[in-house]
């Protein structure tokens, strides 16, 4: 008996690596710590009522952001481990197997469990406020999206300690990812982790499209909508059309692995190229999905801190929509070297380059928003200004890659690695940082410390250039990606050394940011104005943090930067803060179904990964049961009384008569 338990455990848990034992111990310790703190302070009920079952978009947004910062840490630790292994030739720090797992989890976690939720977090907190809405169109669905993402992310991360991580790269190309070469559960963790959270992303896409198109404050026509909301709309359009492709692709891979199918296997007539074709049909739109909202963020910040109207609003909108459609037309640039022929390569090379045009238009419009403005450099603006040259260079190397015959030399080299980190970090990560610094007061009710923030900015940027500029050089030296080791004879040592130093500096920058948050929490200066940056859009017209019903009174929108205009009118005495008639507000009730249902999904995934039908089948029945229960529940909303609105507003320092 004991023997079989031991045998099971040695297969079930990942063993043999001190790093992993370390992780095991720290995971168990932090679990115990969390549980005992919650129990000691009797916070379980509070946690359940206020957070786990919440359907409030702002709280959901905060949970997304929290989770994604955690994932940034995990992905960043992976990055530092890789850089440590690569710091010099013939390092013995990580074995080949382990290194392969680490770059795979790094890529997956960074893109799907860090960038996506960070983006969704900002969508959630900000979009309804910008639109002057009470909530997103479907608060229940929103909560379900979050919990699905969360279960997927947890499932994926579990592979680190149970069963073993996937190691086939972040896009899991077959045939290597097929059963024949990859029999362990790692690849199934990959499939189910992404699949479950992907369904959540799809629902978020639908939810925000409906919200933006149909739930705006009266008077806010589409062409008066803030640019961030536009960027969210274009990103969600791409989500809705791209994510089903991912769902299918992963499902097909799973059918191969689980049911013995032959879609992408070597034998049975399978065709691995089809997987590559399909995954990039999702993969390319995906990278624009995460960068478009960042474009929206820059647009908001640039206008606010230049104290000037956004330049070329219509052009910006148009450019964004074009980008989201064009992003579906370029996928083959990821496999120019697969031999599809000159016709295919020429076509996809040209469509790829075309994207540079609308992207360039956006850059110019930001520049000319600053032109003849009055620029101040608070942290959000500092990030934005730093990003522009950085992203432009990354975009330029993208265009170089899109020159198909030249890509035969760049492909899968560190030149490519440098390109995508530059567009992703300078575009997406820094963009979301800028957004976080900008909206932080709105989300949490206090500003982050500017001085420490500036330190973080410089460290991140210097670290970035040091880390990734040498990688372009390495690419031109012929260094290919996904190498766990290289020889002294290659001449790659110096650049790798510099690159690793850069990575460490970025790690330090991350720690400085955490410190920034801790420091600002301790010396909290509450934002009493609700509008600390003297900004332009509706979210700044209400107290920080926003009351749970957002707007005590529905705003009437008349112009593009409505809040800015209203402030001007009040200043000039043209508009007095008017008397308002408060009405009871209709609100959705909290629900425990999303979290429970996502837990069942987790069991489905886990059961299928280990081929434990006794777990997967009940899990699936649980999922169905949750849907049915929810369908029969007609009691899902309530009204907030006028009294309570008055009390809440007064507590936020606003008197409503």
């Amino acid at each position: 008996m004991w023997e079989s338990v031991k045998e099971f455990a040695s297969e079930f848990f990942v063993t043999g690596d001190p790093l992993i034992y370390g992780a095991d111990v720290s995971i168990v310790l932090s679990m115990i710590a969390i549980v005992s703190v919650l129990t000691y302070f009797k916070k379980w009920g509070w946690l359940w009522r206020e957070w786990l079952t919440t359907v409030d978009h702002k709280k959901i947004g905060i949970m997304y952001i929290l989770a994604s910062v955690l994932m940034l840490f995990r992905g960043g630790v992976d990055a530092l481990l890789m850089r440590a292994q690569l710091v010099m030739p013939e390092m013995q720090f990580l074995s080949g197997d382990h290194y392969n797992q680490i770059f795979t989890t790094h890529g997956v976690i960074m893109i799907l469990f860090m960038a996506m939720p960070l983006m969704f977090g900002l969508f959630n907190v900000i979009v309804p406020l910008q639109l002057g809405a009470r909530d997103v169109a479907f608060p229940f669905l929103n909560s379900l999206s979050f919990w699905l993402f969360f279960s997927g992310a947890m499932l994926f991360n579990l592979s680190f300690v149970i069963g073993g991580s996937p190691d086939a790269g972040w896009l899991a190309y077959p045939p290597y990812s097929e059963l024949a070469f990859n029999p362990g559960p790692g690849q199934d963790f990959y499939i189910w982790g992404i699949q479950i959270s992907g369904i959540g992303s799809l629902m978020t896409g639908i939810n925000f499209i409906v919200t933006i198109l149909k739930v705006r404050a009266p008077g806010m026509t589409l062409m008066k909508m803030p640019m961030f909301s536009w960027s969210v709309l274009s990103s969600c359009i791409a989500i809705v059309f791209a994510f089903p492709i991912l769902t299918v692709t992963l499902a097909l891979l799973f059918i191969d692995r689980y049911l013995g199918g032959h879609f992408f296997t070597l034998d049975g007539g399978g065709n691995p190229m089809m997987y590559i074709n399909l995954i990039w049909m999702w993969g390319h739109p995906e990278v624009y999905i995460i960068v478009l909202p960042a474009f929206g963020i820059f647009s908001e910040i640039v206008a606010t801190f230049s104290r000037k109207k956004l330049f070329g609003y219509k052009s910006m909108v148009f450019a964004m929509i074009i980008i989201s459609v064009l992003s579906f037309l370029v996928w083959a640039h990821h496999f120019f070297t697969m031999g599809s022929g000159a016709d295919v390569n020429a076509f996809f090379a040209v469509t790829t380059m075309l994207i540079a045009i609308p992207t360039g238009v956006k850059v110019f419009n930001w520049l000319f928003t600053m032109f003849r403005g009055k620029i101040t450099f608070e942290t959000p603006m500092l990030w934005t200004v730093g990003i522009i040259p950085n992203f432009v260079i990354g975009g330029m190397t993208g265009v170089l890659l899109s020159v198909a015959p030249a890509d035969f030399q760049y492909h899968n080299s560190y030149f490519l690695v440098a390109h995508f980190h530059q567009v992703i970090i300078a575009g997406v990560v820094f963009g979301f940082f800028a957004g976080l610094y900008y909206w932080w007061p709105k989300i949490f009710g206090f500003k982050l410390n500017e001085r420490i923030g500036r330190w973080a900015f410089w460290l991140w940027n210097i670290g970035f250039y040091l880390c990734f500029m040498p990688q372009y050089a390495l690419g031109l030296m012929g260094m290919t990606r996904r190498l766990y080791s290289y020889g002294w004879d290659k001449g790659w040592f110096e650049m790798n050394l510099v690159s690793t130093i850069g990575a460490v500096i970025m790690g330090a920058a991350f720690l400085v940011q955490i410190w920034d948050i801790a420091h600002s929490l301790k010396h909290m200066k509450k934002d009493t104005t609700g509008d600390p940056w003297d900004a332009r859009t509706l979210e700044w017209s209400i107290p920080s943090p926003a009351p749970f019903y957002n707007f005590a009174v529905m705003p009437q929108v008349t112009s593009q930067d409505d809040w800015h205009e209203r402030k001007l009118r009040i200043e000039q005495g043209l508009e007095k803060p008017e008397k308002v008639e408060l009405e009871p507000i209709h609100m959705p009730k909290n629900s425990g179904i999303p979290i429970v249902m996502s837990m069942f999904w987790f069991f489905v995934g886990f059961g299928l990964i280990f081929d434990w039908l006794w777990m997967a089948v009940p899990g699936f029945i649980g999922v169905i049961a949750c849907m049915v229960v929810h369908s029969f529940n007609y009691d899902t909303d309530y009204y907030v009384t006028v009294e309570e609105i008055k009390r809440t507003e007064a507590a936020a320092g606003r008197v409503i008569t």
Partner: protein
Amino acid sequence: MKTSKTVRCMSFLFMFILLFLTTGCADNYIVLDPKGPIGEQQKDLMILSTLLTLIVIVPVLILTFVIVWRYRDREGRKAKYTPNWEHSTKLEIIWWGIPIIIITLIGIVTVRYTYFLEPSKPLESEKKPITIQVTNLDWKWLFQYPEQGIATVNYVQFPEDVPVRFEVTSDAPMNSFWIPQLGGQIYAMSGMSMTLYLQADEQGEYMGSGANFTGKEFAKMFFTANATSQEDFDQWVNQVKNTSPELTLDGYKELTKQGTSDVRHFSAFPEGLYEMTVTKYAASHNHGLSTRVQPPARVKE
């Protein structure tokens, strides 16, 4: 004052990076130091496209610094401030127009080169191409010389100035066959035989590698591509024929097992081994070893 520091730091940083890029031993940049016609043209194309993009990128960078510098908020500044200026058709036309022009140029160049450098197009040369069949195995490269009847592992030799017709397949997960100094890569996929023409104009030992991840010891898949004189090549072939063991079918099976390998030479290989490897997976795949018409040779520009 804040901004001036910004700009100074930034420009300092850029100089620093430039310094790095230019001083780090220049002969390491093998992609930019090609030794064959394909690599040569790819390098030209890389440089040309870089220059074309720089036409827009450099002004954008300069403009960014200038605007940020000039319009920063400070006491008594003279620069204009127009808070409501938000549209200018003229400007919009400029920045839609210029990128369109540049992209059109790059696009035209790209399309021309794409057809011209199509990897399966034979190279123009008086000399008859030599065929080398490449098989990607789990964590080693097998080279077969159908004309010479010899085979090697992780080492390939061929005469200079002679077009080499690489036929590339895989008996393992998909890889990518790449000799940076001779020219770009091509995927090595099972069930297919990809054609890649390369040629070395100079004698020398060039690094070759697998560029697409295939698992545990993927990092050990480097090989040497040695371009020698025709005499040296013939002599080498003879020597391999006379001194090396034969590659048997069982020997091949042994090679396909997962593991790394040192350089090895074989005086012979089983008849039709390469074709067998390809067709093994291509039972239904519509592009195995069909004898398709060869595309016309490429002509010099």
